[in-house]
Structure formats: C-alpha cells, structure tokens
C-alpha cells in the first residue's frame, strides 16, 4: 500500500468515526489534538478502527506520540512493512 493510499484510508476512517471533522481540511501536518474536532475518546475509536482495518496493532503508549495526521500515517506505514 502506498503512503497516499494509507493517508486516504485514514481520512475516511477519521471522518467516519468523528463526523465533525468532515468540514475540516486534514493535512499530514494537522495537529490532532489542537487543530481538529477529535477528542480523546474519538481518537481511541479512530485508532481501534485503524488497527482493525489495516490488521496492525499500535501499542497504547505509542498513541501518545501520534501528534499529527502524518504521524498516524507513518505509524501504520511502519507496521505494514
């Protein structure tokens, strides 16, 4: 899967889990906890859905290090390799 394909899938899941984000432009540089409508519970939901869709597991304490949308894409990309 290419990075662009992962990014597109991430956006689809984010919008699905937190519909309030649909009007927001989510770039790779978008900071998750300050630039978006995603709260901690919404983020938990997104990570769980991403893990299920991509068939990966991101350790709990790694979640805290996911600062931007690009970080999320990178974390998935790394685990798919």
């Amino acid at each position, binding site marked *: 899967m290419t990075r662009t394909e992962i990014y597109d899938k991430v956006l689809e899941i984010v919008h699905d889990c937190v519909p309030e984000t649909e009007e*927001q432009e989510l770039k790779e540089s978008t900071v998750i*906890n*300050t*630039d*978006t*409508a*995603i*709260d*901690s*519970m919404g983020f*938990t*939901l997104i*990570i*769980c859905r991403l*893990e299920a869709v991509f068939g990966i597991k991101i*350790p*709990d*304490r790694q*979640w*805290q290090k996911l600062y931007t949308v690009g970080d999320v894409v990178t974390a998935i990309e790394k685990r798919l390799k």
Partner: protein
Amino acid sequence: MRTGVLERDADFLALLQRQAALRPERPALRFAEGCLTYRQLLDRVGLEAEHWLQSGKRCLALLCDGSPDCVFTIFGAAAAGLQLVLLDGNLPEEEIRRLLRAADADALWGQDSLEEDMTPALGGGVPQAPGSLLFFTSGTTGSARAVVLTQAGLCASAWNGSALLPLFPRDTLLCLLPLNHVFGFVCGLLWGLRCGACVALGRGPRYYGEDLKRFRPTAVSVVPTLLGFLLKRQALNEELKLVLIGAGDCPPALPAALKGLGIRVSFGYGLTETSSGVALSLGEDPYAMTVCPEDRVRLGEDGEILIESETCMMRGYYRDPAATAEVLQNGVLHTGDLGRFDEKGLLRITGRKKEILVFPDGTKLYLPEYEAKLRTRLPEREFAVLELEGSPVLYLRGKEEERGAVTAALEPLMRELPLARRLKALYLDPAPLPRTATGKIQRWIIKQKVVSQYDKN
C-alpha cells in the same frame, strides 16, 4: 476472626483473607484469559508477596496497565510492605524517569513497555512511606503531586462505598478506569472486592466500546467523558443496574440518559487526598450527596468544603511538608471546593474556591454558576469561563466565523448583568478543551494558552 459486614480491613491482604474465608469459591477476578476465585486470588497474591519479600526492594513503581498481573503485583508487593508508586503507563519516558526519582523507587514493574532502560533512575533515595501507596494527583489547578495513602485508608474508602452502595457476591463490577487514579483503584477494584463481588478487569481503552457487552457487569465506575462515549456508542449491557460517576463535572444529560435506560446513577465526590469518595448520591437527584460514614464534612465561612477523616485522609504529599501544611491543617483538609448543604442535609458541590472572581466592590462571581447561566444560551457547546485581568472571559470551542452568532446568543444575558460581570472577551478555538485524564477542565492550561498566544496577537 471477625467477619461482620461492619469490619474495616487493616490492609489489602486482610481484605482478601477475609473474603477468601467467607466465600473461597466465589469468583473474585475475571479477565480476558480467565477467572480466579477469592481463594485462588489470595494464593496468587501470597506468591507475589513472597517474591517481593525476598527481592530486598523497598519501593516498587508500577506502570499500571490494568492487567491481572498488575493487580497481583500491587497486592503482593503491598503485603510485603513495599512502598508502591502507581503511575500512568502512557506517560512520556522522561516524565516516568522524573517520577521514579521523586518517589525513591528502586524497582519498576512494566519496564518491558518502554523503549528506554529506566535502571539509572532507580535506587537513588530512601523510601519514606513503607507499606503506603503513592498516587499522583491529576492536578486541575497546578502540576501533579504525589499523595501518600495508606492501605487502611484505601480499604476504609472502599468500606465507605460498600456501606452506602453495597454490591453483592452475585454482582460483577467492571473495572475500566486506570488503577493509577485513586477513583479507579478504589471504585473500580477495591469496592467490588470489599463487597465480595466479582471484579472484571477491562482490557484497556481500545476495548471501552466492547467490554461491557463482553463482561456483562451489573455495576461500573466511570468518569463523565467515558460515560458520554459509552452512551454515544450504545455500549451499555442489559444487565447493568448501577453506574457510579466520579472525578469530574458531569453534564446533567448523562445521568438523565442512564435513568432513561432504567439504570441507577450515583455521583461521587472525593479527592485523591481523601482516598477517593467522601460523599455519594443515593437518591433520585444525582447531585445531592450523602457524606460517607468515615468522613466528616463541614463548610468554611466562604463555603469551602472542609474534610476530616481519621482513616481515609492522606498522610501528606510525599517529601513536601510545605505543600501538605497548605491544605491539611490540624487534620482538616481544605479542599478548595465549594459546597452547600441543602434542606435535606445533603451535600451539593457548587464550584471551586479558586474559581471565584472577587470584584472591586467586594461582590463575588462563582465561575461554574456563571457557566451554568451561559449554558442556557449556549447549550451543547464546550466552553470555560476564565478570569483575565479581573474580568470574566469566555473560552469556547468553535470557529472564528461563529463569533457573531455566539455573541448574538449571549447578548440578552449580558444585557441583564452588571457591567463588571459581563464577558470582556471571547476566545474561539476549534480544539477540544484541555482536560485531565478524568475529564476535568484544566483552566490553568487554558489560561496559559490565552495569555501566551492570544495576547501576542
């Protein structure tokens, strides 16, 4: 051995021994991989105690993950007389290192989850509180401090819960909250064990939406944020009959939604410093609370809630006598929270002392009450009122283009208020408000943000 329901337990081991004698074959712990009876749990804890007795260690820090092994280790090391430090396993490694040093830890449980070796941070000091547990407060008004709590105090706090809200051996209490928070530790774990119920250990945040339907609890303790999530996801199970809400301001819509589902709601008030709950609501009104039997509550002249408790009160902040003396004077804890007793003698929380604005004319403004007024004009919005240069200002989650609509919505209310009580500024921010792990709004962080960012512009 006395086994009456009124008996208090001197420590965790005594609690487990009593339950193992009373109901050895009843389930004590359920978890993803299986189940342990009270007898098996006691045996497992005994093995852990033996291990820690022989280890020569004096202060064990745990990166709490809520697993069965984590629970066995806490009880076993406590039985061996070690000082325990319960930490959030998701903290940045630099912060973990700092807290290990601050707590004089010489052993760490959960190191495997870290990338960096913490050994250099261990063994630097002499533990000052053997047999006690250190909890770091979540800190709504300042940075976290380590609170020293005794096993007897935590057991007494669990006894408080069992006296006012008894569970029964056929009940299952689901433990969803982190054990490094005193509310999670007491109301998610000890309360159930104290009552001889079965405690089901949740599988962590990624399973919040599934664990109720997997473990089918009859009771669960939650913070408001988590409850909102569970309701939104329709994650509650049919068998659930009691939800204990604590550790944060709770919007009325949440208990109302539970009642609509026929689930009993109890709201708890307590602090880390009091080993969790001091008062619990027992009747129809979730905000009217009965003071727990092990605590005495009175109000200061300004309405501040003052608490005394021989059993549940903290021993102090670890290695910080000055900070301890600030809040604990002659055995009386000055909570910084404001309350009143209603006509039925029930305690109602009205705000925080530090959230009072005092105007030049001597009149006062209680920010939570002020926010309640604003909420009538801004329902469903997330906001906080802050004091800035002696005036109330509104910090609202929203977009800049909403400024006109928000201002218009508030205008009728502002017109009714004296000039000094009108909002002086509106700050809009699309991000969620910063909250503690238990959902409390962190006004001090918002204020720092406002002062450092907006005033520059």
